[in-house]
């Protein structure tokens, strides 16, 4: 709404000053927001001897890619120790792979399963519909920690600790938010096209897959982004059920890496190389789908 902005502008008396100040404020905000990212990359690229010497240099001193190579386990132990790391292999490549596997599986199944459920709640008539949906909504309000401990016990009983299955289980088939969000969207979609398909003899399933899913792709994509970010960023659950190195995801690997203080202090260059790697996928998603993420913020209050 441009009229609002113009209306406000006209009424001010000391515009130039106010406006300059406002721009300075915004610039400051952007610097405070972005500087830590630069410092992370700068540290990850700083040569091992220079980290303690040139603590204030804005650019990496003796720039090197060695820290990325050693957190990916690409250099031998002696070199890694010489570069400020611990002798233990830090297999970040593995953790990256685990994060990708877990996130991809959760996103695919959660979106499919919740789209089906949301469609049934929005379109189909069946006994118990309001009751079941009401229960889902009630679950929306329960804080995660309440179900975390019983879920841990359940996963332990099924002998699924330290397996991919255990890590993905609680969010694989549904989150109350996902069902709720998609149902709201389906309610707003025109029924005519799918009804035409039904009249032409398509089954409910066929019309769902061939008509409903393509039409509602924007909402499904939004949910996929939300689920992807939440799964990628999740820490507590994978920490308690999957800290074993074979299935350890990135956030858990970073947490363990942080507690290692190989030479008396945390391995900062290695840690910053690790965090840089950990957020590259987030950045790629952000570059590709930034506009979509911004739009979705207007109608999802997730996290």
């Amino acid at each position, binding site marked *: 709404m441009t009229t609002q902005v113009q209306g406000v502008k006209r009424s001010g008396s000391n515009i130039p000053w106010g406006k300059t100040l406002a721009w300075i404020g915004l610039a400051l905000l952007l610097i405070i927001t972005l500087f830590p990212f630069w410092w992370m990359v700068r540290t990850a690229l700083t040569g091992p001897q220079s980290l303690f010497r040139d603590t204030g240099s804005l650019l990496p001193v003796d720039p090197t890619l060695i820290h990325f190579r050693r957190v990916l386990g690409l250099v031998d132990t002696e070199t890694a120790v010489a570069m400020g790391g611990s002798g233990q292999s830090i297999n970040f490549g593995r953790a990256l792979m685990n994060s990708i596997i877990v996130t991809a599986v959760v996103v695919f199944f959660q979106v499919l399963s919740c789209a089906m459920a949301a469609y049934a709640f929005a379109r189909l008539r069946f006994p118990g519909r309001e009751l079941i949906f009401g229960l889902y909504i009630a679950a929306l309000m329960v804080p995660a920690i309440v179900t975390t401990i019983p879920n841990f016990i359940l996963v332990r009983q099924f002998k699924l600790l330290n397996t991919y299955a255990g890590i993905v289980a609680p969010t694989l088939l549904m989150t109350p938010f996902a069902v709720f969000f998609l149902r709201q969207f389906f309610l707003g979609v025109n029924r005519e096209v799918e009804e035409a398909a039904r009249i032409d003899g398509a089954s409910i399933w066929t019309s769902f897959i061939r008509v409903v899913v393509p039409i509602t792709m924007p909402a499904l994509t939004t949910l996929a982004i939300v689920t992807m970010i939440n799964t990628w960023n999740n820490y507590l659950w994978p920490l308690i059920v999957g800290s074993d190195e074979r299935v350890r995801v990135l956030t858990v690997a*970073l947490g363990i890496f942080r507690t290692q203080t190989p030479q008396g202090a945390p391995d900062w260059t290695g840690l910053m190389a690790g965090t840089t790697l950990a957020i590259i996928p987030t950045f790629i998603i952000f570059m590709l789908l930034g506009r979509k993420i911004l739009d979705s913020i207007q109608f999802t209050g997730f996290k």
Partner: protein
Amino acid sequence: MTASSQLPTGTALPAPPAPGRRRLITEESVTALFFILPSLLGFILFYAMPALRGVWISMTDWDLLTDASFIGLQNYSRLFQDAEFWNALKVTLYYVVLNIPLQTILAVVIAVLMSRLTKSMLVRGLIILPWLLPPVVVGLLWLWLLDPNIGIVNVALKSLGLPMIAFLGLPQYAMPTIAMINIWQYVGYTALLIFAGLQSIPGSVYEAASIDGASENQMFWRITIPLLRPVLVFVLVTSVIGSFQIFDTIAITTKGGPINATKVMNWYIYEQAFTRYNMGYSTTISIILFAILVFISLAQMRLMRAGESDM
């Protein structure tokens, strides 16, 4: 598209009746069952059963190793004598008070700045960047920036002739520092929610006020804030709920220390469950946390008359 019209309403709209399809109802029910079955399975296994089981576990002394025995409400009465629990509650409330007012005020300021200065997608994109990151990464990043010896913040303080500060190492600074870190992560996102709310206020309202001679200050307090109320309620309720559950940042930076200064409810629950194996007692605390959140959310909505709009 306004933010408020898209907020969850929680009402279930009945599907319009489909005349002439009466005979298909059973077939439709069977199909519907097939459609909701996967989600229902997930719901029963990982939401409904754990919730009920949690209530049961909270009435036992289970330690994971030996069999659980029923001890009634002992865990609940234990809470009252547990100084650590009261400390955790106090520390959590302190965090919420440090976090929410400052974050919300900053977010409103940023949202107003943006709506006056620029509609740039780039600017909006950049300010939500921290929110997309794993809190674990954000915690690590600030742990490094604030390192007492060679972190850039202290290096900068030193070069200005100021004393260096162990931000996360001193009890009096640790919680404000954690609050600052989380404001850094979430203020941009909150600002964007409010920005979306600002866009939905019709410009004509401001024009009319301006013709009537209202000052900018008056317009902000008499128009912007009242019309933003539904969005502000949403932002406050969700961010307060989120703040009460802070875990990741603390797990990475201070682990509840120094001297319990950052031992919030979720960290205490985690510690009771996974380092002391008191499954019963930790579950009890989590149920109390849930009760507190329900109470606070209802109180907030009531106080702020959430359902009404001033439009």
